[in-house]
Every structure is written in C-alpha cells, then in structure tokens.
C-alpha cells in the first residue's frame, strides 16, 4: 500500500523497521515466525523493550505515556511489528483495562495501575465470560456483595469465570460482577479489579484442541476485594464494558499478521513439491492462495479507508473487520495445513513449547501447523462470535 502512504508515513515506517531490526530478539522472532508457543517471559521481555522506547502503549494519550501517534502511524507500527514477527503486546492491560481506568477510574487507580501496566509490572487477565453467559454477556452471575468490617469497605465475590486467557500467569483480573440482582440484567453489573493472589481465587486450566494451556476457568470463593478496587460507580459496569468494546480498533483485522502468514504459506508452497514442481505453481493450490491474497488486499484497503475517515471507534465497521479478519486468518491456517500435507501430522508438544530444539519427526516448520490450525478455530468464536457480529451489522448498520 505504498502508493497510499505519505512520505512522512513512509519515513515513520523506516524508523519502526530500524528499531525492530536492532531490538527484536532473534529467538523471539524465531518462535513467532515458526508458530511456536510463547512463554510468560517472552511476552514480558518484549513488552519491556517496547516500554523502554516509549512504544508499549501506542493508543494511550501522551499524558499517560503514549507516543502521540496518529491512527495511521499506529496502524503502521502494528503492521511492522507483526511483519517482523514480534510477539503481540497482550491487550488485557494496555488496551482493555487501561482505557477504562483512564476514563472512569479514581485518581488513585490511575496513579497506581497505569504506570505498572505500561511497564508490564502486572499481568492482567479479563474476567468477562462465564459458563452460562457466552455471547449473552450481560446474563453473568458472579456476585459481589458489599460489606463492611474492621478493615473497611469491601466486596465478597463468589462465582466463576471461564475462557480466561493466560490467567495462569496473571497478577490481576478485571471482572464484571453482579452487584444488584434485582434490576434489569445490564443495570446491576459492576467493574471490579481483583488481585489474583487473594485467598479464594482458584485457576483451573482448560486444555484446548491442540492441548495448549491457553485459557482457564477462574473460581471465586468468598474472595475479599477492597471497595477501592471498584472502577467508577457501582452498577454502572455495563457502560464501562461497552466503552471497552467500543475501543476495539482497526487492529482487530490483524492485517499485518496475516501478511506475514501469507508469506509463510507461499514460502512453504514454493518449497513443497507436487509432481516435481513447486506447489505454489499448481493451479489448484495457487488459485486458493491468490484468492486469499486478494481478500487480504481488500481488507487492508478497507482498514485504511476506515482509518482515513479518522473515526476512533467504528462499531459496526469493527464487526466487519472482525469477521473478515478472522475468516482470512482461519483460511491461512487451512492453507498451511494443506501445503504441509502429511508433514503436518506428527504432534510434538515439547517442540512447540520450546523444550526441544527440533521436532521429534518431520520438518520443524511443518510440525506446529496442525496445532495452529486447531488453535485458530477460536478466532471466529471469541470477542463476540462472528454470528453475533453479523447481528450487529444487520441491526446497527443496516437498521434491520
């Protein structure tokens, strides 16, 4: 999309590229590019490198430590990081809880949490989903009862969250809890910050299709949370949660990552042979790759059109980007699997986790691909399933 960027944008891109070339640790880059599993330290390490440069939170206002970039610059930064194979900066602290604290938190909350989030001193996770409340988030049941004792005001929290991503590493969880069961379901919800080391918090891993420990159930059994950890007003949590969702940006389309994966598919398909010729030259396989590349070009252009309009939080447009972005991501994992063929069948978790340098069998770069394919089925389900996104488009954008 060079023809669409200004010279200043291109100069900025060069600056980001130079930074990535000199600071992105090769072993992290290798893990990301090869679809290996990242560990807690990998995420923290990269976050702190970015923080040292002042680039850990591109979306934050300058007063809280953001770099003051334009939306286009943020897009370029995200894309360059993804293309280079940098680990993702996990969104739970920087992009989810931080904007809510900035907008609705107390002065004390801002002063305490925001610098810690920026420096990655706390690992945050998200306590929204519950076993009985998936897409119907507002029907959540985890309760928080306000009480006073000798130590002051606090909440007693009981209930269960689920699908909590990387909660096994977390220091803090931001939760939606029910503080008033007697009103309309959206109106009795509060937004609470809970220390994961509090007595009564239990984390139980959920093994995914690919046996990776990525998500968890989190149980709250009479957990005591200081009232100072309530964000904003009691029973106004639904408003804050919606604000958070509205903060989803064009990054949801993950164009940069898909570009990197498309290049990976092509490299693989140039190496693999079908009847003695590169698989990419096979008309059947090549056509699938080409069709997907065109879809990705169109998505990138759609993202840039949204950015060019300068709208901060495009609701129904974000739904379009989510659907298309995840469809493309999933299709890329399918093509990887198809390209690798039988080489994708050996399953070697020790290699995926980095415990072994090379895969026990088969090719190193093919070994993670089946796992990757299975893992990516989640993308059309999380963050509001793609069916829910279609409802949003139909109702909010088309007025049906």
């Amino acid at each position, binding site marked *: 999309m060079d*023809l*669409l*960027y*200004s010279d200043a*944008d291109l100069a900025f891109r060069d600056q980001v590229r130079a930074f990535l070339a000199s600071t992105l640790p090769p072993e992290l880059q290798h893990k990301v590019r090869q679809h290996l599993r990242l560990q807690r330290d990998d995420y923290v390490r990269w976050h702190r490198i970015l923080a040292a440069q002042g680039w850990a939170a591109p979306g934050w206002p300058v007063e809280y430590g953001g770099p003051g970039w334009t939306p*286009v610059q943020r897009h370029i930064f995200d894309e360059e990081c993804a293309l280079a194979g940098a680990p993702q900066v996990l969104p739970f602290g920087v992009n989810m809880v931080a904007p809510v604290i900035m907008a609705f938190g107390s002065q004390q909350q801002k002063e305490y949490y925001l610098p810690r989030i920026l420096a990655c001193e706390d690992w945050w996770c998200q306590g929204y989903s519950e076993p009985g409340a998936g897409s119907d988030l507002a029907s959540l049941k985890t309760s928080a009862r306000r009480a006073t004792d000798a130590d002051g005001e606090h909440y007693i929290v009981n209930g269960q969250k689920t699908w909590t991503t990387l909660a096994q590493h977390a220091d803090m969880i931001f939760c939606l809890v029910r503080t008033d069961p007697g009103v309309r379901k959206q109106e009795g919800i509060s937004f609470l910050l809970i220390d994961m080391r509090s007595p009564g918090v239990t984390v139980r891993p959920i093994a995914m299709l690919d046996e990776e420990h990525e998500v968890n159930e989190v149980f709250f059994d009479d957990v005591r949370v200081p009232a100072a950890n309530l964000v904003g007003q009691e029973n106004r949590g639904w408003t804050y949660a919606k604000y958070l969702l509205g903060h989803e940006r064009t990054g949801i389309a993950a164009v940069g990552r898909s570009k990197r994966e*498309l*290049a990976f598919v*092509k*490299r693989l398909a*140039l190496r693999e042979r079908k009847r003695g010729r590169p698989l*990419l030259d096979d*008309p059947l396989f*090549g*056509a699938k790759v*080409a*069709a997907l*590349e*065109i*879809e990705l*070009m*169109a*998505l990138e*252009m*759609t993202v*840039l*059109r949204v*950015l*060019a309009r300068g709208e901060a939080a495009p609701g129904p447009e974000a739904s*379009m980007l989510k*659907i*298309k972005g995840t469809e493309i991501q999933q299709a890329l994992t399918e093509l990887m699997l198809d390209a690798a063929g039988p080489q994708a069948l050996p399953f070697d978790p020790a290699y995926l986790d980095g415990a072994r340098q090379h895969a026990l069998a088969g090719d190193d770069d093919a070994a993670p691909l089946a796992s990757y394919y299975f893992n990516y089925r989640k993308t059309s389900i999380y963050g509001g399933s793609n*069916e829910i*996104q*279609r*409802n949003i*488009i*139909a*109702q909010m*954008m*088309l*007025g*049906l």
Partner: protein
Amino acid sequence: MHFELNQEQQQLADAIRRWIGRDYGPEARRAIVHGEAGVSAAAWATMAELGLTALPVPEEHGGFGGDAVAMFAVMQELGRGLVVEPYVATVLGAEFLRLGGGHGALLERVAAGDLKLACALGERQSRHDAFDIATRAEATEGGYRLHGDKRVVVHGAEADVLVVSARDGGGGQGMDGVSLFAVPRDSAGLRITGYRMLDGLRAADVTLDGVMVDAGALVGRAGEGGAILDAALDVGAGLLCAEALGAMQALFDATLDYLKTRQQFGAPIGKFQALQHRMADMAIHLEQARSMALLAALALARARGGAGGEGGEGREGSEGGMGSDADADVAARRRAVSAAKYRVGLAARAIGQGAIQLHGGMGVTDELPAAHYFKRLATIELTLGDMDHHLERFMAQPGFTEAA
C-alpha cells in the same frame, strides 16, 4: 491518505445522478433498450453536455484530462443508473488512441461528443484472452489489409470508429506482433451485425473481409501494440469495476429497502436472522469490492501520471524500453486491476444472487429493477476478463511469488 471524492468529482457525480433521476428512470431505460437503436441520442447529448465525453480526453485534444479516480466517480453513477449508452466503449476506445499517440482529431471529436468508438478485440477462440488474436493485418502499399472475425464487440454497431486488434502473421498469442487500427465504420469490407445482450446493452459481431486502411489508421506502432492493448484493457476493467460498484450499491440499497417493507409471518422479513446474516455478508462483499475498485483506480491514476509522460508515443509502447520503475508500475497496475476485477466479480455474484433470493418470487421477474442490475452485473463479469482470467493473471505477476 484520502479516499473520498473531491468537490469537483462529487459535483459531477451529483449532476449525473440528478440527470438520471429526471430522465433515465426504469421506464425510460426500458423504452431505450427495447427501441430500435438501443441507445438514446438525447441521453448521449446530455452526457456530452455534462462533460462526460470530454472527461477522459487529454486537455491538448479538447478534453479535461480526468484521471481514473474521476472516472471512478462517474462510472459509479452510471452503474447506479444502469445507463445503457455506449460510454464505456467510447472511453476505452479513446484510451487506446491516447496511449497510441496521434489521432488528435478523433479524440477532439470524442471530447465534443460527436464521435463514438468501440473496441473490436474478442474472437470466437479467444474467450477472455485478448492476446489470442487470429485477425490478420497484411502490409500493403501505404497501408494494411485486415481479415478476421470479432465477436461480441460491445456497442460495435453504434460506433463511428472501431479500434481493431490484429497480427501481422495470422494467429498467435502473447504481447509481440500485435497491431492496433482505428477503422471507420463505413470502410469497405467491414460487416457489422448488431444485437442485444442479456443485460439490454448492444453489441455486434464484426467481420473484416479485406478491409483496407491507410498507415495513419495505426494506433501506436505496427507490431508493438501489445503494451497498449494490455494497458487499455486495464483501464477498461477499472471502468467496469467502478460501474459494477454503483450497480451493486443500488441493488444492495433496493434489497435492504425490500427487507424492511415486505411483511411475512407478521413482521418485516428483515427481522429474520437468516436474512439478516445474508444481508450482512452482502454488506461485507460490497465494502471489500469498493476497496478493490478504489485501489484499482488509484493504481491506474498513478500509471497514467507515471513515467514516460502523458500519451507520448512509446510511453507504454515497448516493454523492453521501460526502466525498472516503469516495469514495477506496470506490474503493480496489473496486480491491482486483476485483483479488483476478480474481487468485484465475487461480490457481484454474492450481491446479485443474494438480492434475487431475498426478493423472493418478485426477484425472478423481468419487471423488477433488481433483475436488470443482476443481469448487468453478470454481463460485466464476462466482459474484459472473468474471475478465473484475472486470478490467473494476478498469479502470473512477479508480486505473487516475490511476496514470499
């Protein structure tokens, strides 16, 4: 980054929309389509008055020198209005003349609105490959003699001058050895059989039985027309993408309106989730297609303004003579245009078929305007390269494997 129309383009688009709203409604269009001429002289005069015929012609030939983005704005409106006049054929013909250099007198008449052009490129065996040319051009004293059969020449019977592709050697493929000629319709040996296409537009089969033209009829240089053909076809495909976008938008809007008004089971049918999801998917197709049509227009505008100068002879005339920047620009143009034509085709099917389905029984009648949009979209898909053709061409560009 700026993807909205500028004020001038928007004003022109508004003027076209007002004209269509006033004079070119479904009934007026039906009368034109079923009339003997198949086109309207009055409509053409108005289009010339609005400046549409002058828009793509360079300023030195009396035009406005509008680029592909300006044409994008115009074509969207003509697509929305389902205009059947020979505009794309004339603009595409003018692009051949512009790229070939010379022919200033013809271009001036195009700009003024008193010359219509058509492009006789396709043949029975060529399907979507405009480089599969069996038409022969024999050099004679002071000119050429042309033999061949051209099929489905859009607006071939309405044109005053036809741009004809031929080879010196008889049959063949590829860029080399292609010659292009501007052939007046009253040339001896030229037989034109006009007919109506499924979308109501006119086309013709054209037989060249020893048609004599003088050397001045050459568009570009003898045997070196390949690059011009390639570049002009991209311009044509870009025009069709924008036209399709306008048609898809109109069809989408009409369908959405229908979902909100048509009652079944005691509710507007748009309340049913199965229909909502289909419509949401059509909305995504529309946005993706818009993105690609716009990208193609930007790439074409860049190619036109790029290295080699404006309309100079040999600008696109010889691949070998271009620098690497120009080569890269040509590859980028082909990639963008083929990607767009493919993606727009995909959306045209999803939106066209979806609109008919969502209109139910009404959708399969000729009475409904939606049906005419569907037919126009299906025609555009099969014109200047279908989806398979453009996907294959996209894959053949260096960018496809270089990006690995």
